[in-house]
């Protein structure tokens, strides 16, 4: 294996739209997911995340492109690869007239996985006490946890999770986040698609951002944020915000109040000019720092409809 558990090259998937017109759900997508860690796969609705995941799992036939999963080509060797992969695609589809335990046992039987592992997994996802209830009586969150449990049955080295926090309450989300981190710390790879960006930012080691079926950024979270360039603004904390804004305007700076700070439109390298201007206006700085961009800011910027189209053959950041 090359060190990448998922490799996608030039992946394209077309669907026939209205009037027979072909629409590309994924367009020339390159993706490399290294072994171990949590990899966030981000993109707005309709960006091609789930279609990509379906291609990885052989559920959808790509129009063209090359895919490998745990070092094996897909779809040719998928039946070998799938033994080492646990996956949830979209909403968890379980057998509603089975109990939670029967669901897991039924899936485990396909790969000759024993009852002890089923019990372990039920405990791991916190469903031990409700394991004998029918799944149709489960809440969405419980179904999501059971589906997560199903992915763990095989003790997989790669987990592919499509929006695993959907339908979970805050405690459930935290549990899933902790579980993903724990699995990654054990040396597994967790490939997770999500639109809850705060989750990704704090859980993932690496991310890829998708727009209109193309990858617009890829790398570690830090690399991706750095690739978008530093923010051209500083945040200043002073006692009298209005007086500070007035002083900065007199000195010719663009300044505004923002969340208990004054935001000054200036490069961080020119911070000394800001302190001088404020001092001249009898305003004393208690905190001065460059404005940080969150992953969410970057995500919205990169995936906005009026954002410039990504270059073909996108280069991975920091690769």
């Amino acid at each position, binding site marked *: 294996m090359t060190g990448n558990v998922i490799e996608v090259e030039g992946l394209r998937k077309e669907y026939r739209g209205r009037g027979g017109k072909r629409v590309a759900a994924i367009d020339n997508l390159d993706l490399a997911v290294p072994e171990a860690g949590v990899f966030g796969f981000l993109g707005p609705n309709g960006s091609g995340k789930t279609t990509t995941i379906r291609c990885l799992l052989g*559920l959808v036939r790509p129009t063209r492109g090359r895919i490998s999963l745990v070092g094996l080509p897909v779809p040719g060797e998928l039946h070998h690869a799938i033994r080492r992969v646990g996956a949830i695609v979209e909403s968890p589809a379980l057998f509603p007239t089975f109990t939670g335990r029967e669901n897991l046992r039924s899936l485990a039987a396909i790969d000759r996985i024993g009852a002890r592992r089923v019990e372990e997994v039920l405990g791991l996802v916190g469903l031990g006490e409700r394991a004998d209830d029918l799944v149709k009586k489960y809440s969405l969150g419980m179904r999501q946890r059971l589906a997560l449990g199903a992915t763990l049955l095989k003790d997989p080295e790669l987990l592919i999770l499509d929006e695993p926090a959907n339908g979970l309450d805050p405690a459930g989300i935290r549990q899933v986040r902790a579980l993903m981190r724990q699995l990654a710390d054990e040396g597994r790879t967790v490939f997770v698609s999500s639109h809850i960006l705060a989750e990704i930012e704090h859980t993932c080691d690496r991310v890829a951002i998708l727009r209109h079926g193309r990858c617009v950024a890829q790398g570690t979270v830090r690399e991706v944020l750095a690739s978008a360039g530093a923010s051209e603004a500083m945040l200043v904390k002073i006692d009298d915000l209005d007086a500070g804004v007035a002083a900065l305007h007199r000195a010719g700076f663009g300044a505004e109040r923002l969340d208990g700070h004054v935001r000054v439109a200036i490069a961080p390298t020119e911070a000394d000019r800001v302190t001088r201007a404020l001092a001249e206006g009898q305003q004393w700085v208690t905190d001065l720092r460059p404005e940080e961009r969150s992953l969410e800011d970057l995500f919205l910027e990169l995936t906005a409809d009026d954002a410039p189209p990504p270059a073909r053959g996108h280069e991975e950041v920091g690769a």
Partner: protein
Amino acid sequence: MNLLVVEMRRALHRRVVRVLILMALIGCAAVGVIAFVDSAGKSLAELQVNGNHHPAVMRDWWIAGGGDGALSVSSFFLLMGGLVGGASVAGAEWRAGTVTTMLTWEPRRVRAHLSRTAACGILAAVIAFALQTVFLASLLPAALLNGSTANLDSHWWISLVAAMLRTSLLTAIGAVLGVALATLGRNTAFALAAVFGWIAILEGVIRGLKPGLARFLWGENMTLILTWAQLDNVSFRRGPLVALITIALYVSLIVAAATLVFRRRDVGSAS
């Protein structure tokens, strides 16, 4: 083998399968009670007046060669039950999205589809045989207490069991057909509409306009298999074995088409 067992367990857990079995059991009990009440206090001659068959007379349960008797009545319901059950099992998989779940465990689609088809066929045959046994058992009180158990030679018993096995086979064929059609249309309704549209409407039209083609129709061939004798009131001669081969060929073609489509078509939509 594992997959086959898993598919059989899942099919048995389907509500529609359980409801169909329950309805059949209620039907058996009702027929048993009606046969008993109807035969109470009547002589054998009264039970068989005008050459009619009565379920209180065991010999009338199955009339070899003519395909008549109480057992033949149950065959129609079992065949329909097999079809509805098979179509519902496959259709429900698409509705619930569990096709995706299964394919993330067994991505070899041909294997997955054929396992499900075989599981439904085997289950349908076993259930059909068991239900026929229950049905005939429900008639026993009427036969033992009010009717007759005379003239039951070994030839008759063999003929009865063979008819039960053929009915089980036809039920299995119905289930396999239901699974294949529901897989093609990705829902239960498509399968049921296709079968009823074909057998009730198209075959009727063909029978009326082109009687010479009737030998190739499902209805005629299925009846031939069930009775295992030449049909009355038809213009053609056709052996039951040829009918069996014809039906096997039809079912194989439909299953092959369903398998091919299941193998090639994408599972899930763009998002």
